[in-house]
């Protein structure tokens, strides 16, 4: 695995809703094993761009390439099978299922079970089930929610739900993980923990992470590169320091007060 290999490359991606161009000519690439953030004011088109990558929307123009393969016209489930997993801005766990089951759903593309094996309870089915269960337990421990396996997802506290959602995405064995505002609604302690988790994901598992984030502290601390979007367009890209000093970004997003606060 070459260090600087491009994992995801988008070229001139455009997404329109009627007369509104939500994403306009996004050129963007992310390398393996990096943490990359997209920031921008509300309504800048960050989540739309995310949804376009993960296949929930289909781009009107441009191409999306993952590991050298065109994924722009694939359905969301096939994109996940290419090893891109995601979480949602507003948590979307399967609330009436238990935590373990939620994470096992993430293994859907990894599990090999044919209907015949399921109906006859063949050895391979049992092995696969056990493997998925053990994997789910391992992930629960990894993200820090172990011992909650048999709880219904809807009964978990907010921070734990966010963690379970990440575990569920990890169960799909992603090479690229899309996190849509993962620390939204967390208190400073929780988001500090989340930061450590993201860094561990990259360091231990070599997963590239694409992050949408509002919490500037998180963004500046954890990301290696930052892209700034406004009105559907990329207005800046660079290292955290460069972004913090970029006058265009300050104009569009941070505001003068916040910018001066950061530079001191």
């Amino acid at each position, binding site marked *: 695995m070459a260090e600087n290999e491009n994992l995801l490359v988008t070229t001139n991606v455009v997404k329109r809703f009627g007369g509104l161009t939500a994403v306009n000519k996004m050129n963007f690439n992310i390398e393996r094993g990096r943490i990359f953030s997209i920031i921008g004011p509300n309504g800048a088109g960050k989540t739309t761009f995310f949804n376009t990558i993960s296949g929930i929307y289909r781009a009107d123009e441009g191409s999306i390439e993952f590991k050298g393969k065109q994924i722009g016209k694939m359905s*969301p489930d096939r994109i*996940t099978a290419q090893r891109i997993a995601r979480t949602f801005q507003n948590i979307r766990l399967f609330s009436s*299922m*238990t935590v373990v*089951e939620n994470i096992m*759903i993430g293994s859907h593309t990894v599990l090999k079970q044919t209907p015949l094996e399921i109906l006859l309870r063949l050895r391979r089915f049992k092995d696969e089930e056990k493997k998925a269960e053990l994997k789910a337990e391992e992930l629960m421990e990894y993200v820090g929610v*172990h011992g909650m396996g*048999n709880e219904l997802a809807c009964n978990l506290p907010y921070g734990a739900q966010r963690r379970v959602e990440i575990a569920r995405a990890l169960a*799909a064995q992603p090479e690229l993980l899309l996190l849509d505002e993962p620390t939204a609604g967390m208190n400073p302690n929780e988001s500090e923990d989340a930061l450590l988790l993201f860094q561990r994901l990259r360091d231990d598992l070599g997963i590239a992470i694409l992050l949408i984030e509002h919490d500037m502290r998180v963004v500046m601390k954890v990301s290696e590169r930052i892209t700034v979007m406004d009105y559907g367009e990329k207005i800046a890209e660079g290292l955290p320091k460069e972004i913090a000093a970029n006058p265009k970004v300050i104009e569009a997003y941070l505001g003068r007060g916040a910018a001066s606060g950061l530079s001191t």
Partner: protein
Amino acid sequence: MKESMRESIAKIAKRLNTGRAPYIVSGVLIVVGTLLVYMSPRSILAFLVFATSGAMVYFLKMNKTVKLALAVFIAVILVPILGARNIFYLEVIFQIAVFAALALGLNIVVGFSGILNLGYVAFYAVGAYLWGFFGSQQAFLLHEIPGTAPLNTPFLMAPEWFYIFVFLGIIVAAFVGLILGLPVLRVRGDYLAIVTLGFGEVVRQLVNNLDKPLNLTNGPQGITPIQRPPMPKGLVDAFNSMVSPLVGNQVTESQFYNIVFYFIALVVVILAIIVTARLDDSKIGRAWTAIREDELAASAMGIPANKMKLVAFAVGASFAGGMGVIFAASRTFVSPDSFNFMQSIGVLTMVILGGIGSIPGVIIGAAVVIILNLQVLQSFSLYLTQLRQSEAVIPIINFAWKNLSTQLDPAKYQRLLFGLILVLMMIYRPAGLLPAARRKRELKGNAENDALKASKDAAKEKSNG
């Protein structure tokens, strides 16, 4: 007051369910139920006690082997013997089995995957008409006007084919489910319900009108006679010689068919239960639940939502198709009337009443609805008729029973009763009689947690003491 009553009931239930008590309870229930049915074969109360004893074998906490042995004993020995004494019970149990399989199939579609299907009975019709056509003389009457079959028309197939057609019915209905599902599943929510309702009616109208240009279905008159599976000669006599000393009466050959169909339906229901339970506890079942909960999130987790929904549609349809074949053979008659919209609603009622998504739930739902329908309401009607023929008057208002309008016959108020039941269920037990529960897995993290909790509790007690 209410609370303390509920508590004491829970306490009694717990005591009955620990140690040796459940064995005694179920044993006594079985013996009492059997004796009651034996002594008064026409009383519904006796039958209800017997049915409860069957249910208790499932619900009480007992050794698995004991449970299985008791279930086999009831299903294979007690039911046929008691059924020989009053053949009507076999009809009731047969219908419960048929509708339990239908409810299980619909439960996969509505309960597991959350697709509201209001035309489910169409697949039942597919199975019934499949054997209705191939198992009758209809193939030689294609150019005859309905009702003018010449004498001595041969049958298309030998009755032995029935067994193969049960499987064919399963396959054909699954295939029809796929074909119907392809266009239907493109719409969602309320629209989907309306489209499935439409499809159910389309199938009924098709069989109603396919008597021209080629007389495939014999139109509204329906197809009859349809062949029943062959029975080895001497089986009835053998049964009679064994059982009649016990029950005191002989069964005729056509009565014996009730026993045969009871066993066939029982086998199909057991298969349906196994298939449903195994699919539910697998990658496929989890995918269905995920689609029901949040289709977008499910597809983002790599679940091909449309494909999985089609699978649900096909599997659900297949149960109905198999039971359709059995139904056609048991009645020796099929007509479009058996597959109207009320039937679809009836099966849906069983699913909702018993507990959406719960396998024991929908079976109980089917049993409750069928027993209400065939026994409770009918016997109320019978009682009312008796009162009407007597000289009795209603006390206080001094109204003679015989002047009571026949419009007030309880059997006519089936739909009103179902409506009431559904409304009450939605208010007091929206998840059904036996709500679906998620399976608890044995996880090592949990064990640690429990141990931690236990030690904490112990520490707390110590500090308190």
